[in-house]
């Protein structure tokens, strides 16, 4: 199917990378973080890029998933899988009950409300120390195990998280290119016209908010087991902003763009460590110039550039 052409490339890249570079730090360690960020960025992009509803609190749902897994497995001795499921249910309930009133807001007001939501979740993680371990975090989280196959090496974590990323991307691409995805995009284009075409904009908004939150929660659970340790810092307001930056940097309303944004924002700091004190400064300068020169985001910008080069080539070929 045509809407999955890019997806097959992604699958090929995900398979080949660890084969070409086995035990490479940038593939199986940084790469796994990038893949986890990509899951989050793809889910946020569904909400922001496609449905046009901004959220500055996405890290909060990532946190709910992570802490549900961390607390239930370490303090209550649950098996990771039902703990993960519990995290999903909890996230779903929170996103659904808060999503309805919040999503009545638009633009800056929606940004403020979701920002508040993220901050409240973060404060709760810090304040309920007896459960969450407070600012010190919670360690000793067991690793995942699939039918006796323990996820206990970098390569295995790569396999698990990249597989989840691919599954999420496949589902999201299918959604985008179908009736429900068109409803999301219509919402972004014109709410009143979407309603007039029979789309219940209220339930559609809540639905996509819940879906994005569920994906973030799943990523959170995986993160907790992979790191074996969680602390509130990983789910702060700053991380929500970083996720928004990934989506905007890659190009709104492009799933591949979101993945690209996640990869760049994960790798750039790694590569910039050589600049030591100037790292953050250069990081900021790169982000700023990217947005100035490619305001529609990297993915769309590069597509356009590529098209221009291709037409130049064919013109030269014809002449």
């Amino acid at each position, binding site marked *: *199917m045509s809407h999955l052409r890019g997806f097959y490339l992604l699958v090929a890249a995900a398979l080949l990378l660890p084969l070409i570079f086995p035990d490479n730090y940038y593939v199986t360690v940084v790469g796994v973080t990038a893949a986890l960020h990509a899951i989050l960025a793809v889910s946020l992009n569904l909400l922001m890029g496609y449905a046009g509803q901004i959220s500055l609190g996405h890290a909060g749902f990532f946190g709910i998933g992570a802490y549900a897994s961390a607390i239930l497995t370490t303090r209550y001795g649950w098996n990771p899988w039902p703990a993960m499921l519990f995290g999903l249910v909890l996230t779903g309930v929170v996103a659904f009950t808060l999503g309805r009133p919040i999503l009545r807001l638009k633009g800056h007001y929606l940004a403020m409300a979701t920002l508040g939501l993220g901050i409240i979740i973060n404060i709760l993680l810090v304040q309920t120390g007896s459960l969450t371990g407070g600012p010190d975090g919670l360690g000793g989280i067991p690793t995942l195990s699939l039918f006796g196959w323990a996820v206990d090496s970098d390569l295995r974590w790569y396999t698990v998280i990249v597989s989840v990323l691919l599954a999420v991307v496949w*589902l*999201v691409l*299918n*959604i985008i290119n*179908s*009736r*429900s*995805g*068109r*409803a999301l*995009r*219509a919402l*972004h*284009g*014109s709410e*009143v*016209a*979407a*309603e*007039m*075409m*029979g*789309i*219940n*904009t209220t339930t559609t908004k809540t*639905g996509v908010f819940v*879906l994005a939150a569920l994906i973030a929660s799943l990523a959170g659970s995986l993160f907790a087991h992979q790191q074996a340790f969680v602390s509130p810092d990983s789910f702060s307001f700053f991380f929500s902003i970083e996720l928004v930056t990934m989506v905007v940097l890659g190009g709104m*309303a492009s799933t591949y763009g979101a993945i690209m944004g996640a990869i760049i924002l994960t790798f750039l700091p790694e590569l910039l460590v050589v600049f030591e004190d100037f790292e953050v400064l250069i990081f900021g300068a790169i982000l700023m110039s990217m947005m100035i020169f490619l305001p529609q985001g990297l993915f769309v910008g590069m597509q356009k550039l590529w098209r221009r080069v291709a037409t130049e080539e064919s013109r030269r070929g014809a002449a």
Partner: protein
Amino acid sequence: MALLEVHGLSKSFGGVTAIADLDFGVPEGQVYSVIGPNGAGKTTLFNMLCGIYSPDEGSIRFLDREIIGRLPHQVAELGVSRTFQNLQMFFNMSVLDNVKVGCHLRTRGRIWSNALRLPGTRREEKQAERWAREAILFCGLDDYLESHADALPYGVLKRLEIARALAASPRLLLMDEPAAGLNDTETKQMRSLIRQISGTGITVLLVEHNMGLVMDVSDRILVIDYGSRLAEGPPEAIQNDPRVIEAYLGGEIEYAV
């Protein structure tokens, strides 16, 4: 009994009365036009008919069911579709996808079935594609099928809105100034498009300032001024009605297309 029956409809915004105690009925299968000077309340009337505004008083019955109290998507479910005076395009989508959104109510696939691309979804996608292409062809937009909506000229967008509304296969189509901003050629195309739509059996409720077009395509015309009914009847009667001539620019109406 008329397809659409409006009784005692009133709506005011703060101190401004937009619609005042309005009565009319739209018989099935007709092209029924609502005309009146700028600010007469035509768009406000449309917004009430499709559930965007709720009236202060009155009733709106479509197929003998009350419209008031329903949300726009519920009104759409009853078989009402519309176009907008100020374009409400999905500029973030292609022409084909814009029109496919029009098929929303004719398909059922839920998000999980879409996400897994189950056989039902595949079937529906093909069906939606066929319906959308039909509507696009009907409105003469085949050249723009794959174009992105934000790259299209105004005249094409006006027709694209109609194609999207038609893809919903409505019983009643509300058109708010479809010829506004169009040149002469485009206006002529629009006139024949409205006739064609009516020819398929869809009832058309038209708001339009181009009198030549209105007189030409309408079966009946309702004239409103300051939200109240000024006159109602077939085009010939309206053209010669002194109150209508009075209301329009103090007696000068351009009937040329």
